């Protein structure tokens, strides 16, 4: 048995211990959960060192489902892409576990929280280790379960329970496609193993490739909250903030990006599929950014931002710029986790307040949070030198050379990103204050156990881009590292045009920040004027383009009405009515026939005589 399996084994063991003995362990739950993550992270480092030079290996645990020629195993495929994903999941996961010690400090479900969090890291590491499609699907659903449990962590709130259920069901809609894709892959290739499938993809019929790729992408749209299956992610903010950072920003929601990048051999066989990926990504990137412009809940701004940034990653994949997509996945994990944890720190400092309208001027009171979060914001908008600058501009460059229309829209998205991000920073930390004196008085910086993870993530946001993201003639160091797995298309970032693009995007970002400055910093803003539906457009954006409303009216209510009709009218009235009617008819007939049994011998004799007469008459007449 390979040591690779220790990476998921530690968090699994941690989860089981805290689940079974949670009541005894109580406040000490982090002494189980955090060391499990540290061990898992160290294991990931060891594995990363093994794939450093680019080679890959597989290791099989046991044979799982067998039925004649259908056979799947629990197998891990470890290559550079796996290595990168493992480091992100366990590294960011470890920081968020530490942060949670402070954030969840007073929660009565402390042990349960760490049990779920460990269970998630187990599932997520298994997801990226999986060496075949079925195993990917298994842990794809498992992370969905953890998401369900953690969104509904504060289960006495109806809104939290509702949001958890919604997330699971919307994801199942995506998994409907993913599941069918897996069946189709098996029919087409006779195996579900990555290596064999990707090798066989070269000779796959384009129509089959299109079908499989689009169904796979349907699953990705569910997990990674792409239009039209994005509706669950904003609601998922009902979960505790560390969950939003780990699951709904840094790791789980990027599983769709990982899956498409991993299966690029299938997508490349179909230009239709790649175009769909590109345009769903572009539309989501812009669509979600528009909604982020007006949100008043600090976490919802970040949630729509996450949806939008995932759109950028898919756009990159659709353009064939796989390493750019994965690079943005990594940098986004750093700065978006940082932003969420920072938001959590603000919420913690304000005793649960999430409304930007009731914040303001927190910078002097929460210096570390304000500083680190501003770094995160600069990382997100793509400030030159920070992580997002390199990753986002790589995507924009790929779009410029791939599709001008996509490039223009993504650039507009970058402008909106800069605006909503700094709107958030200004409203939370600089203008104001708009909260009550009492709240302002009690506002405080978070404890060190929460601020240190912020500092670590801020450091990563600063260095990650420059360390591995500076392009040379043969692509970035990051792309070269992943080149055994993900093909690099040469000549995308050519010379003068590339520099022009960089300058242009920096100008656009600066313009977005400046606009936010003018709207929220230049003159003091009143709380009442923020997030008011003053125009039709703002009303539309505040209601997230009425997509939830539309789904409710067009899908949920009609199906519910149909179910009620089937249950009350059709099943009880028609089907059971027929059955009982048949029964009654028999009783009625029997009651009629019973009258023949009069008990009078004369009657019987007469009947017999009549019968005999008819019988004889029949034979005579023949």
């Amino acid at each position, binding site marked *: 048995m390979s040591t690779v399996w220790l990476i998921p084994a530690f968090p699994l063991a941690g989860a089981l211990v805290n689940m079974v003995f949670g009541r005894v362990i109580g406040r000490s739950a982090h002494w189980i959960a955090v060391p499990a993550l540290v061990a898992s992270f160290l294991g990931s480092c060891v594995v990363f060192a093994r794939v450093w030079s680019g080679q890959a290996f597989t290791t099989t645990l046991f044979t799982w*489902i067998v039925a004649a020629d259908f056979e799947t195993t629990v197998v891990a495929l470890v290559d550079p892409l796996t290595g990168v994903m493992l480091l992100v999941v366990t590294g960011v996961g470890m920081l968020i576990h530490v942060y949670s010690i402070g954030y969840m400090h007073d929660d009565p479900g402390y042990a349960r929280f760490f049990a779920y969090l460990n269970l998630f890291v187990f599932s997520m590491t298994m997801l990226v280790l999986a060496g075949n499609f079925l195993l990917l699907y298994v842990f794809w659903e498992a992370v969905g379960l953890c998401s369900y449990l953690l969104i509904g962590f504060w*289960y006495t709130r109806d809104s939290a329970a509702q949001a958890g259920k919604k997330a699971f069901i919307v994801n199942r809609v995506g998994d409907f496609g993913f599941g069918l894709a897996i069946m189709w892959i098996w029919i087409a290739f006779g195996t579900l193993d990555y290596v064999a499938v990707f090798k066989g993809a070269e000779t796959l019929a384009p129509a089959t490739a299109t079908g499989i790729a689009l169904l796979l992408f349907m699953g990705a749209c569910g997990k990674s909250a792409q239009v039209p299956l994005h509706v669950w992610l904003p609601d998922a903010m009902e979960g505790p903030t560390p969950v939003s950072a780990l699951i709904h920003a840094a790791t789980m929601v990027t599983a769709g990006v990982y899956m498409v990048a991993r299966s690029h051999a299938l997508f490349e066989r179909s230009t239709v599929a790649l175009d769909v990926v590109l345009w769903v990504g572009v539309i989501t990137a812009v669509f979600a950014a528009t909604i982020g412009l007006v949100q008043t809940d600090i976490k919802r701004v970040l949630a729509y931002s996450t949806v939008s940034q995932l759109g950028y990653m898919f756009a990159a994949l659709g353009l064939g710029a796989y390493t750019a997509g994965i690079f943005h996945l990594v940098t986004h994990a750093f700065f978006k986790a940082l932003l969420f944890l920072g938001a959590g720190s603000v919420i913690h400092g304000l005793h649960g307040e999430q409304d930007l309208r009731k914040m303001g001027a927190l910078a002097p009171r929460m210096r570390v949070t304000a500083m680190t979060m501003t770094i995160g914001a600069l990382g997100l908008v793509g400030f030159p030198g920070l992580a997002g600058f390199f990753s986002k501009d790589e995507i924009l460059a790929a779009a410029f050379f791939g599709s001008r229309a996509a490039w223009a829209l993504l650039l507009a998205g970058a402008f909106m990103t800069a605006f909503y991000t700094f709107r958030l920073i200004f409203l939370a930390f600089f203008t104001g204050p708009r909260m009550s004196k009492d709240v302002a008085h009690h506002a405080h910086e978070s404890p060190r156990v929460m601020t240190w993870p912020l500092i670590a993530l801020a450091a990563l946001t600063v260095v990650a881009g420059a360390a591995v993201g500076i392009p040379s003639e043969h692509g970035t160091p990051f792309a070269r590292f992943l080149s055994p797995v993900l093909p690099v298309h040469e000549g995308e970032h050519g010379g003068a045009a590339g520099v022009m693009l960089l300058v242009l995007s920096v100008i656009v970002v600066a313009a977005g920040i400046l606009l936010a400055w003018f709207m929220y910093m230049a003159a003091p803003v009143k709380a009442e004027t923020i997030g008011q539906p003053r125009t039709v457009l703002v009303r539309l954006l505040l209601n997230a383009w009425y997509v939830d409303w539309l789904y409710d009216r067009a899908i949920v209510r009609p199906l519910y009405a149909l179910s009620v009709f089937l249950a009350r009218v059709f099943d009880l009235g028609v089907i059971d009515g027929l*059955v009982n009617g048949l029964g009654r008819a028999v009783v009625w007939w029997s009651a009629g026939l019973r009258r023949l049994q009069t008990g009078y011998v004369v009657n019987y004799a007469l009947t017999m005589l009549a019968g005999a007469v008819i019988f004889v008459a029949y034979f005579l007449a023949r």
Partner: protein
Amino acid sequence: MSLPPIGLLTVVTFLPAVGALLILLLVPRRHEEALRWGGLVVSLATFAASVPLWTGFDAGDADMQFEELLRWMPGLGVGYHVGVDGISVLLVLLTTFLMPVALASAWHAIEDRTKEFVIAMLLLEAGMVGVFVSLDLFLFFVFWEAMLIPMYFVIGVWGGANRVYAAVKFVLYTMVGSALMLVAILALYYQHGAATGTYTFDLPTLTRYVLAPGLAQNLMFVAFALAFAIKVPLFPFHTWLPDAHVEAPTAGSVILAGVLLKMGTYGFLRFCLPLFPDASVDFGPWVYALAVIGIVYGAFVSTVQPDLKKLVAYSSVSHLGFVMLGLFTLTPQGLVGGVIQMVNHGLSTGALFLMVGMIYERRHTRLISEFGGLWAVIPGFSALLLIVCLSSLGLPGLNGFVGEFLILVGTFSVNKWLAAAATTGIIFAAVYLLWMYQRVAFGEIRHEANRRLADLTPREWAVLVPVVVLIVWIGVYPKAFTAKTEASVLALIAQVESKAAVARAPLPWWASR
């Protein structure tokens, strides 16, 4: 005269009946505890006796094993012929496993006429095992009918308010199907006799006989199929099921859902497919259609049920739709999946009924609207209920996924649109189960009576934990179970394919490749 040696299968089949007789004769009715322990010990002994069937079963051998053949009524061609293959051995084990669970669950729920209850349950077990091991049509029919009587009493005596209506409906509905099946059995008996000169009810002999395709085979298929379809129940023959479940006591529901329904799907597998291969293939598209309608319809109707037990009952229609679909794909994946899904449904739905029963014993209501916020009061119950719901909605890693996925793979290889239609079931299952769970376990406590609920007792843990262990075991390592089945399934498919005539009418679009 020397008695023939008694085989293991005979022991497993008749041990519960012998136990019932001993309890009848030896334990006075006022000693309720002794009666309960007696029933439990007999059912546990039966389970223990059935374990060697499992451990001693040769997975590589597709033939019947532990076979016993005695002459019974040689003049009529009736024999006492029993045996198990890789399919029926699983169902026998499922039966012997669930019976002690059901009896233990009824410890405090049944306090009236305990003696009769224990005896009825044990006789029921004997009848059910008999159905699964019979290799003689006459013997099979005897067990099939005999098992109705104790079930009738379990529903009709220990049931709810409307129990007599439900019990009569259950028995009459089943009998209509059985009567037609009896006619078909006799028709097959005479046709085989006339053609070969051997008049026999022996199943292996009859299976070797190639029945000409055509009207006679179709009629016999329909007669058998109707009897089994009612039992499964296949849409639209399902309306007896919600009534029977709602009225039956918990233990009765567990056995009804866990084992009795499997007699229908097993019947298709053991009789319809091998005896009437041409008709099975020709009628396949219609079975697909009804199965897929059942999957979706059962889920929809479940969603809006206000009563927990009705919700679970309708979910059976959906789950059994998957099983039927798998069996009639006639692919190794569909059949293996179908067989394992029979076991899965027995465990998951059995556990759901057990837990509904437990909460009913506490609150004397099954209305979902009466609950809410239970996690805060009874976390142990709520956690197990979640695991069981997840198993039922086919979460990977738990048992339900393995069966459903194999069935869908088999279906996909027949027709992708059919598979797509069936796969929608995984979405709707999440809808009705998670919505139910949300209303029961999450939210604020809305009813004062729920604040004082007691969490699971040690006895209840003992009832549920073995089931949950199997739910996880099959989910994580299904090979332990599917390996026993595979050879028999492959042999069955080969048999059907070799017997079915080559030329046939084109299939409708939803059933052709």
